[in-house]
């Protein structure tokens, strides 16, 4: 059994579940090496959930095997007349579930979003195309599903563009805010903000680190 071709082993492993694959790594070196190939993990994920096509890669490799129902979502583009309730009714899910998945605290914070992620049922995933994404706004690794693979291929980069556009507009306000908070001039604030990739908390941390270093020098 130890001289099976790698191709055959990959085929075999793609038929067992995620937990089995993770456990089988401990069998022997050959199996461990084969299982570590991304191909196997992708095949297992596709077969476990009945996904037809899989686009993109996760940030962490472990997501392939530990992906649960909570990682799957539909990306819904918000229109201005929509409310959380209308989205919830449209997809037949709980309002609270959408809030949790999107870190939405209040109803009107929906206005600041281009899109929301809608949780799905297990049966909805079967037969769909899927794509790995990491969303900065909700800070989650997600697998979004869609009937149409072209939509997945084309859709997401556009959304990323939107995020950057918001950033440019918001950068001015944020740097003013940061400047006032830390009592530094706006340009310095802008520098730290850019350094932190637009993350306010990180910018403050970076600034404090620098100041500490300065004081140490004296």
């Amino acid at each position: 059994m130890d001289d099976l071709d790698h191709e055959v082993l990959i085929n075999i492993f793609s038929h067992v579940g995620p937990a089995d694959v993770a456990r089988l790594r401990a069998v022997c070196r050959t199996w461990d090496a084969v299982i570590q190939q991304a191909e196997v993990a992708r095949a297992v994920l596709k077969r476990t959930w009945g996904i037809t096509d899989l686009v993109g890669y996760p940030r962490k490799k472990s997501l392939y095997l530990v992906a649960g129902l909570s990682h799957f979502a539909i990306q819904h583009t918000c229109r201005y007349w929509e409310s959380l309730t209308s989205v919830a009714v449209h997809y037949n899910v709980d309002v609270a579930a959408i809030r949790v998945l999107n870190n939405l605290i209040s109803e009107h914070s929906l206005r600041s979003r281009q899109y929301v992620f809608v949780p799905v049922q297990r049966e909805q995933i079967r037969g769909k195309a899927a794509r790995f994404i990491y969303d900065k706004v909700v800070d989650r690794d997600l697998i979004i599903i869609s009937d149409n693979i072209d939509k997945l291929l084309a859709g997401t980069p556009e959304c990323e563009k939107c995020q950057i556009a918001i950033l440019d507009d918001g950068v001015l306000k944020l740097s003013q805010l940061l400047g006032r908070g830390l009592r530094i001039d706006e340009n310095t604030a802008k520098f730290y903000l850019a350094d932190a990739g637009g993350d306010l908390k990180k910018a403050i941390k970076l600034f404090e680190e620098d100041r500490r270093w300065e004081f140490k020098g004296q």
Partner: protein
Amino acid sequence: MRTVILRSSDGADHIVSSEAASLSRTVQSLLEELEAKEGEESPLIVPLPNVCDCTLRKVLQYCIQHTEPGTNLTGRIHVSETRRRDLEVWDRNYMLVSTDELYHLVMAAHYLNVPGLLELCCEGIANLIRGKSPQHVRQHFGLVNNFEKAEEEDIRRTNLWALVDEKELAKK
């Protein structure tokens, strides 16, 4: 319908229709070569030095079953619902073999390149593996644990979540 002679590694000949033999892509391409070289008339003998007689017999059972009327040559199967269900049942019974036989079968299916059979065998092996602990799998398939002790410990630790039910499995 043309017939083909397949010769196994121990020299035994099996006479099958060229349709059934062509399920194996390896044989199919060999046949095309032979036909081009020797012309239409001469008997077509395909030697298969990597497949033993009993395995070849088993493989041919599959090929013949899957090329009965209702199946077309290209491998794309246009069959009625009942026929498809019959085949599924047949496949399930066909898979009732020992681990050793299954191993030889999967090797042969890979060598002969019979996609349907390979898929079936891999699924059969996967069914044997599913839900078993690594030690159990090693025993079952005669594999040797060639990890360093520290290495194995490391893999076990990183995949703890998959191993939690191992103790429960051992109890059964």
